């Protein structure tokens, strides 16, 4: 007998020897990286409603029936029937998945309810009077997240009680009620759960945090000066910042953020209107299934969690030489005026790079050190690296590039982890998929570049990349921040002479507007409800301040803004002020020449018109508009 029967091959294992086997099997998907020391949860139990079990049972029954049907259809080779069975299995699987996920959900109240005791203890010891009010106990989260969030949450509440709230005497001096309040709540928002911890005590001193951050070389002094108060406060989350003595209120926040990052969540601290602090934590509902971008490198698939993904970038072959630059020995790409460090995935993982020779379609080993370098047939054939002197290199770079094949285009995945953003060069970009995370064997724990693995639709395995560790492996830490070189200015001025990029948008159904793209700082999607009408002006909260909003119809006689709920604002800066221009979609960009007709439709706020794609488009003069609406801004000594 060569192969044992499956039935008889049941392993006999000693129950004491594998205490955590059960937990590993049951929730493989839920930990990014299973640490050995917290695997001691073999005997954990979870309460599930019987009705849920019943529905699981029904679904399992359905699944078995469908499987039988499928087997039958395969035997008789009935394609039509197979299609409908396939659909049914698809349906049942999703329902089953949903039901099982539901079984893992637990109300967040289980951890919230442990906190009043902690706060009372602190109040007793320090002689403060603190009330902890809790809302949103019923908000449900995956059990793993509940477990993982309890320690960070305890820390945040503790800090708020110990250092956020002052003693009753000090509070009455500040005209606050003698009793301090900590508001702890959870709510659903946009497919995520937001946990907020608000206190009406004293906000941490953002300047002191900034000073500590500069001292710990987390930010440079110059960078620090450009930061808003809120951004300075959020420096408290920088890893490695130690401010136990200077700002005890936020001590240990770096660890809290690390824990929350691990869960794929975000955390933010802000000053509260009445003088207090609000820390908000955003968490995904579950970790078991995460959306990922699938990429390929050297014929293997890898997945990058969407939470780390910033954008996808493709640099056409012909632009590679211009856009990839060298800063020191680091390769960077110019992206909207910023320099983004680049890392080749194959290099970090030490995979042999290959390329397909365009001449004879053979796969050869890629030996180029730099992206913008070109391949030399000589080096390939002689099998020795060709050492060129500097002059030679320069002349080769300046010579017209023969890089034309579409295969030479660079695919870059811009990823961020913590405060490090970089571009990962991959061979090709695939779909984005929802994947189930499975942990890797302990033999592979030493490979820090992976957060786990997953099984793709075709049965093959893809590794999930750990973006933060990859950055560390490529020794990229914090490099992104130091590279904020003022680039791109030259590009902008060059274009003025030749062509404008025009951003096209609408305010009402039938009127099309355009504005020079380089004037627009940012475009944001907002809801109508975000707009507040105050003092005869429209404003909205934006990046911790308020942003004045204007409409074109306030200056020019055009149709008023359409009654959509989804609006866009284009943010412009005028002198040292920012202003948001209200618009609605769809937006698009076009290259136009210097052929603006500045007579026919000229009016205040409108510089003229141009015909784009057969439609007359009014070109907005934003400076004139803001100048008319806010005449006091045009003097350089503005209001603020």
């Amino acid at each position: 007998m060569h192969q044992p029967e499956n039935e008889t091959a049941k392993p006999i294992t000693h129950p004491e020897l594998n205490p955590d086997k059960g937990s590993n099997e049951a929730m493989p998907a839920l930990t990014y990286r299973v640490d050995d020391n917290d695997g001691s949860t073999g005997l954990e139990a979870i309460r599930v409603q019987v009705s849920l079990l019943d529905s699981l049972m029904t679904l399992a029954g359905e699944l078995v029936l469908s499987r039988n049907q499928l087997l039958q259809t395969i035997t008789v080779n009935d394609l039509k029937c197979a299609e409908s069975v396939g659909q049914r299995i698809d349906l049942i699987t999703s329902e089953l998945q949903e039901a099982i996920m539901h079984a893992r959900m637990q109300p967040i109240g289980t951890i919230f309810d442990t906190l009043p005791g902690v706060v009372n203890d602190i109040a007793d010891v320090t002689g403060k009077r603190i009330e902890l009010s809790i809302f949103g106990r019923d908000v449900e989260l995956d059990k793993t997240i509940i477990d993982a969030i309890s320690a960070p949450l305890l820390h945040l509440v503790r800090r708020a009680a110990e250092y956020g709230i002052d003693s009753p005497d000090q509070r009455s001096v500040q005209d606050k009620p003698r009793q301090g309040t900590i508001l702890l709540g959870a709510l659903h928002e946009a497919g995520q759960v937001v946990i907020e911890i608000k206190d009406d005590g004293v906000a941490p001193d953002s300047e002191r945090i900034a000073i500590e951050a500069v001292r710990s070389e987390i930010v440079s002094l110059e960078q620090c000066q450009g930061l808003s108060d809120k951004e300075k406060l959020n420096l408290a989350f920088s890893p490695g910042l130690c401010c136990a003595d200077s700002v005890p209120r936020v001590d240990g926040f770096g660890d809290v953020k690390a824990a929350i990052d691990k869960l794929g969540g975000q955390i933010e601290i802000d000053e509260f209107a009445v003088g207090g602090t609000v820390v908000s934590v955003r968490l995904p509902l579950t970790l078991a299934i995460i959306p990922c971008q699938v990429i390929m490198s050297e014929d293997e698939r890898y997945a990058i969690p969407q939470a780390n993904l910033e954008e996808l970038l493709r640099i056409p072959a012909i632009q590679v030489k211009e856009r990839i630059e060298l800063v020191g020995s680091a390769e960077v790409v110019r992206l909207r005026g910023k320099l983004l460090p680049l890392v080749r995935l194959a290099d970090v993982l030490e995979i042999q790079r290959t390329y397909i020779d365009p001449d004879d379609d053979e796969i050869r080993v890629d030996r180029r050190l730099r992206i913008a370098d070109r391949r030399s047939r000589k080096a390939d054939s002689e099998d020795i690296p060709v050492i060129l002197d500097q002059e030679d290199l320069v002349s080769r770079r300046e010579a017209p590039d023969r890089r034309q094949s579409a295969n030479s285009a660079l695919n870059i995945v811009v990823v961020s982890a913590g405060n490090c953003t970089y571009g990962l060069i991959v061979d090709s970009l695939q779909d984005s998929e929802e994947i189930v995370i499975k942990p890797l064997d302990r033999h592979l724990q030493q490979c820090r570049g992976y957060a786990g693995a997953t099984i793709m639709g075709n049965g093959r395995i893809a590794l999930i990349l750990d973006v933060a560790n990859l950055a560390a492996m490529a020794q990229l830490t914090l490099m992104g921040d130091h590279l904020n070189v003022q680039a791109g200015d030259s590009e902008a001025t060059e274009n003025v002479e030749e062509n404008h990029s025009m951003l096209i948008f609408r305010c009402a159904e039938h009127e099309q507007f355009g504005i020079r793209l380089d004037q627009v700082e940012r475009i944001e999607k907002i809801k109508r409800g975000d707009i507040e009408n105050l003092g005869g002006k429209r404003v909205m909260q934006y990046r911790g301040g308020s942003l004045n909003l204007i409409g074109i119809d306030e200056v020019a006689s055009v149709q008023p803004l359409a009654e959509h709920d989804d609006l866009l604002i284009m943010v412009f800066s005028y002198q040292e002020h920012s202003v948001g221009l209200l618009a609605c979609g769809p937006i698009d960009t076009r290259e136009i020449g210097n052929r603006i007709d500045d007579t026919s439709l000229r009016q205040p706020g409108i510089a003229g018109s141009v015909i784009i794609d057969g439609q007359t488009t009014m070109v907005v003069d934003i400076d004139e508009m803001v100048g008319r609406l806010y005449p006091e801004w045009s003097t350089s000594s503005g209001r603020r």
Partner: protein
Amino acid sequence: MHITRMRNGQRQTLELATFTVGKEQCGIDILQIQEINKIIQRTPIPQAPDYVVGVFNLRGRIVTIVDLCKKLGLGKTEMGERTRNIVVNSFDGSAGLLVSSIGDMVVVEANSMEQAPANLCSIEHIYFTGVFKTETQIIGLLDIDKVMSLDDCAMTQSTTEQGSTSHGKN
């Protein structure tokens, strides 16, 4: 292996699945084997330890394939027609063992096991529970838990050794 014996104190015979590692004949208690298959599709893991050939999808589970030859310090297994993957259950889950070829199933008397010689078939004796002699061959019984223990650093070895002696003698 010792575990099996403890649980079945009265068991008289052992069934061993034999296979070759490099040129050597080894065996594993059949009850520790989940299945034996050919590797159809494997995913290599960049930067993995050199004895890890890759991972494969075993009906929805991701199982690591370990080159047994390499793990035992005998050099790399050449992939070929006869190479097989033995999926075993060690103390912390399953793993696949890549072996050069599969041999017969052999029934041996449990009490005929002898202490492994210090240098059986050029594999270090610590990896063996013992050896069995049949009329034609000598089969070394591999201790899967030890083979699968994390790499060869002295510390892990000494701890597992202590652990196994206390278990084995009881």
